[in-house]
C-alpha cells in the first residue's frame, strides 16, 4: 500500500473530503515556487502603486461644485445601485447556468456522487470565492475612498470605511445571487426576469431620484459620507438584504445541478488554460459557452438574397447575418455597455477627467463581440485561403459591419452622456468622434481576437501580458484622449467640437495604420502557410 492520505482509520465521508482537500492544499503550497510568487507580488506592488500614484495626481483637483454635489446626493446612490443591479443580473444568469462555482470534474464524480451532504461539500468552495472577492472588493473600495475624499465632503476615514464596506458587499451580493439561482435551480428565463426587474427598479430610482430598490439602498452605503438623515439610514436595510441573499445562497448551494457542474468543470478547465496563455479569443468563446450564449435559430430579421459576384456586399451581408442572430442577452449587453460608456463619460467629464479612459474600455468589451464574424475568419485559415479574395481585402472588408455597429453604440453612449450630463455639447463631440472611434475600436478588438496566443510564448510573461493588454489600452486612449482634450478645451474657454474633430482625424489616421498592419498580419500568415 502507498502511504495514502494520512492514516485516520474510519473517517466519515465529509471528514474524508475535508482531509483530502487539506492534503491537496498542503501539496499545492509545497509545490509553489516561493521566489516566483514573491516576484509576482513585487511586480504587482510596483505597477499597482505606480498606477495609483498616477491616478491620484490626475484626479487631485478642486472640490466638487455645489451643483455636482446636489446631483450626487440625489442620484449617485441610484447610479451605483444600477451598476450593482446589473452585476446581480449577471450573477443570477450565471447561477441559472450552474455557476458561480467551477467544480473539478473529479470532485463531481467522486465527492458529489458520494452519500454526503452536497451543501457541506460545496460551501467551503463558495466561501473561498467569497473571501477572495470580498477582500479584493474591500481593497479596491478603500483605494477609491482614498481618492474620493479629496473632492467630496467627508473625512478620509469615513470615505475609506464606507467604500471598503461597500466594495466587500458587492461581490458578496453578486455571489449570493448566483448561488441562490444555482442552488434553487432557477431557470434562465426566471433568473433573467428577476435580474431584469431589479435593474429596471434601480433605473427607475435613478430617473426619479428616489431610494426604493434594494440595490439603490446598498448604493447609499457607498455615498454614506455625503448623505444624512433617512437616506443614510437606508444603507442598513440595503446591507442586511445583501447579507440575507448571501446567506440564502450559501445555505442552498447543495442544490446545484450536477449536470451544470460537470459542464462548467470541463469549460472552466479550458478557460483557465486559455487565460494562462493569454488566448483572449478562446476565453471569449468559452465564456459564451459557460453562459449558454448561442446564436438564435431564427434571425431577428431575414435579409433578402444579395446580388451575386460582389465580394464586398457578400462579406457585409454575412456579417450582418451574424448580428441578426445575436441572442437577446448579447444585444442587451452591447446596448448596456454603450449606455454605461456614455454615463461614465458624462460623470467623468464633470467630476474626474482621468476616468474618461473608462468608456473606451467598456466599448472595447462590446467590440470583442462585434468583431465575431471577422474572428471566425481568423479561426478557420483553411476556409479563408480557399476564397478567391486576398486575405488583406477580406479582413478590411470584414471591418465595415463592425465599424457600423460600433458607431451605433458610440451614438447610444453619446445620447446617454447628453441626457445624464444635460449638456448638448456632448452630442456634438459624440457625433464628430463616432466614426473614427468606431473604426479604431473595431481595429483594436480585431487585434485581440485574431492574435496568435502561441506566437509570443518564447517571450517573458510580462511581455505577453503587455501584448495582450495593448489593444484594450489603445481602445481606452482612442476614445478617452479626444474626450480629455475636448474637456480641457472647454475648461480653457475653447471650442470643444473643433478640438474633438482635430483629434478624431488623428485617431482615424492611427486606425488606418492599424488596418494596414492587420492586412499585413493576414498576408504573412496565409503566405507563410502556403509556402510551408
Amino acid at each position, binding site marked *: *500500500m502507498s502511504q*495514502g*492520505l494520512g492514516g485516520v482509520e*474510519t473517517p466519515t465521508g465529509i471528514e*474524508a473530503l475535508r482531509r*483530502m482537500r487539506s492534503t491537496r492544499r498542503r501539496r499545492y503550497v509545497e509545490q509553489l515556487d516561493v521566489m516566483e510568487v514573491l516576484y509576482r507580488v513585487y511586480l504587482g506592488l510596483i505597477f499597482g502603486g505606480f498606477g495609483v500614484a498616477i491616478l491620484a495626481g490626475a484626479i487631485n483637483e478642486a472640490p466638487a461644485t455645489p451643483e455636482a454635489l446636489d446631483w450626487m446626493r440625489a442620484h449617485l446612490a441610484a447610479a451605483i445601485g444600477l451598476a450593482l443591479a446589473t452585476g446581480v443580473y449577471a450573477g443570477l444568469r450565471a447561477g441559472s447556468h450552474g455557476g458561480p462555482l467551477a467544480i473539478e470534474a473529479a470532485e463531481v464524480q467522486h465527492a458529489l456522487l*458520494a452519500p454526503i451532504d452536497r451543501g457541506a461539500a460545496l460551501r467551503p468552495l463558495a466561501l473561498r470565492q467569497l473571501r477572495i472577492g470580498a477582500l479584493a472588493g474591500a481593497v479596491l473600495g478603500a483605494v477609491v475612498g482614498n481618492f474620493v475624499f479629496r473632492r467630496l465632503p467627508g473625512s478620509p476615514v469615513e470615505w475609506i470605511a464606507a467604500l471598503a464596506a461597500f466594495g466587500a458587499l458587492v461581490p458578496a451580493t453578486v455571489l449570493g445571487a448566483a448561488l441562490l439561482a444555482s442552488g434553487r435551480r432557477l431557470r434562465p428565463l426566471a433568473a433573467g426576469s428577476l435580474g431584469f426587474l431589479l435593474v429596471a427598479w434601480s433605473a427607475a430610482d435613478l430617473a426619479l431620484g428616489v431610494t426604493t430598490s434594494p440595490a439603490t439602498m446598498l448604493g447609499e452605503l457607498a455615498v454614506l459620507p455625503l448623505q444624512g438623515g433617512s437616506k443614510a439610514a437606508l444603507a442598513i436595510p440595503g446591507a442586511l438584504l445583501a447579507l440575507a441573499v448571501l446567506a440564502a445562497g450559501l445555505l442552498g448551494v447543495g442544490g446545484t445541478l450536477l449536470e451544470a457542474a460537470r459542464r462548467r468543470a470541463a469549460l472552466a478547465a479550458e478557460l483557465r488554460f486559455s487565460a494562462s496563455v493569454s488566448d483572449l479569443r478562446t476565453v471569449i468563446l468559452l465564456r459564451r459557452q459557460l453562459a449558454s450564449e448561442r446564436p438564435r435559430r431564427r434571425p431577428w430579421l431575414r435579409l433578402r438574397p444579395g446580388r451575386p459576384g460582389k465580394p464586398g456586399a457578400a462579406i457585409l451581408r454575412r456579417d450582418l447575418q451574424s448580428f441578426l442572430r445575436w441572442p437577446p442577452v448579447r444585444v442587451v449587453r452591447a446596448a448596456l455597455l454603450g449606455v454605461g460608456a456614455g454615463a461614465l463619460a458624462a460623470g467623468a467629464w464633470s467630476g474626474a477627467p482621468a476616468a474618461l479612459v473608462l468608456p473606451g474600455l467598456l466599448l472595447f468589451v462590446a467590440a470583442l463581440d462585434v468583431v465575431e464574424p471577422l474572428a471566425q475568419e481568423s479561426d478557420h485559415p483553411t476556409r479563408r485561403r480557399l476564397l478567391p479574395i486576398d486575405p488583406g481585402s477580406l479582413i478590411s472588408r470584414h471591418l465595415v459591419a463592425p465599424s457600423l455597429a460600433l458607431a451605433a453604440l458610440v451614438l447610444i453612449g453619446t445620447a446617454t452622456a447628453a441626457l445624464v450630463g444635460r449638456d448638448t455639447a456632448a452630442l456634438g463631440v459624440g457625433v464628430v468622434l463616432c466614426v473614427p472611434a468606431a473604426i479604431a475600436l473595431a481595429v483594436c478588438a480585431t487585434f485581440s481576437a485574431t492574435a496568435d496566443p502561441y506566437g509570443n510564448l518564447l517571450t517573458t510573461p510580462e511581455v505577453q501580458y503587455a501584448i495582450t493588454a495593448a489593444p484594450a489600452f489603445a481602445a481606452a486612449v482612442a476614445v478617452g484622449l479626444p474626450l480629455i482634450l475636448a474637456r480641457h478645451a472647454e475648461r480653457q474657454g475653447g471650442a470643444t467640437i473643433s478640438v474633438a474633430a482635430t483629434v478624431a482625424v488623428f485617431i482615424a489616421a492611427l486606425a488606418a495604420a492599424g488596418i494596414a498592419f492587420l492586412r499585413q498580419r493576414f498576408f504573412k500568415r496565409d503566405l507563410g502557410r502556403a509556402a510551408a
Partner: protein
Amino acid sequence: MSAHASLLRARDLGRTYDGYIALGQFAIDVAAGELVALVGPNGAGKTTFLTLAAGLLEPSSGSVSIAGQAAGSIPARAALSYLPDTPVFYEDLSVAEHLEYVASLHGVEEPGSRIEELLGRLGLADWEDSLSSELSHGMKQKASIALAFVRPFQVLVADEPFDGLDPPSREVLFELLAEARGEGAAVVVSTHRPDVIAAAGRCVGIREGHLAYDGPADPAAIAEFFDAEELSPGRAAGGG
C-alpha cells in the same frame, strides 16, 4: 419480475435537450443479482439513461429510483456505483489515494485489504503511487474500475467498461461483475461487445431514445431488432 425485488426502476423516464429527445418514456426494472446488457447504436440514449440513474442528469419527465430511493438522493448515492465511459481523476492524487478517498467517502472501514486486492487483480499494484497523468488509457480504465468496486453498492451502472481493456483485464472485470451479482447487486452494463451481451442474462436495447428490445441475451432474438453492424465492437466508438 417482482416489483419488490427491483433495485433499479425507471418509469416513463424521459430526457430532452432543447427539444431533442435523448430518452423518451423509458421503463425498466432490474432485480437483485441480475446482469443487464444495455445495447443500441451510438446516440441511442444509453449513456443518458445511465447518467440519469447515477443522478448526474435530471429527468425531463418520469422517474428513476435506486433501491427504492429517488436517483441522486443520499441513500441512492450510497446504493449506486457509477463507472463512467471516460475515467475521471484528481490530477494530484495517486491511484491508491483515489481508492482510499472514495472508500472513505462511502464509509468503508479499513479499506486497505480491498484496495490491495483490487490493485492486484487489475494489475495496478506497480502503479498504485502513480498520478493519472502517468497512466495509459487502459491503466486509467482499470483504475476507474477499481474505484467503482472499492466501495459497497447494491446497483452498478457501467458505461462501456470493457473498452480499452486487454484480455486478462476483461476476464477480471467479468469476474468482478459475477461476484457483484453473486452478492445480490443489480448490474447494468452498456456495451457493443457480443461477449458481454452473451455473458448477460438479459439484454435491453435502446434505439432513438426508446426501448426497442427487452428479453434474453439471445443473439438471434437481438438480431431481429438491431443490425449486426450497430452492435459490433468495431463501431463501439462512443456512448449512447
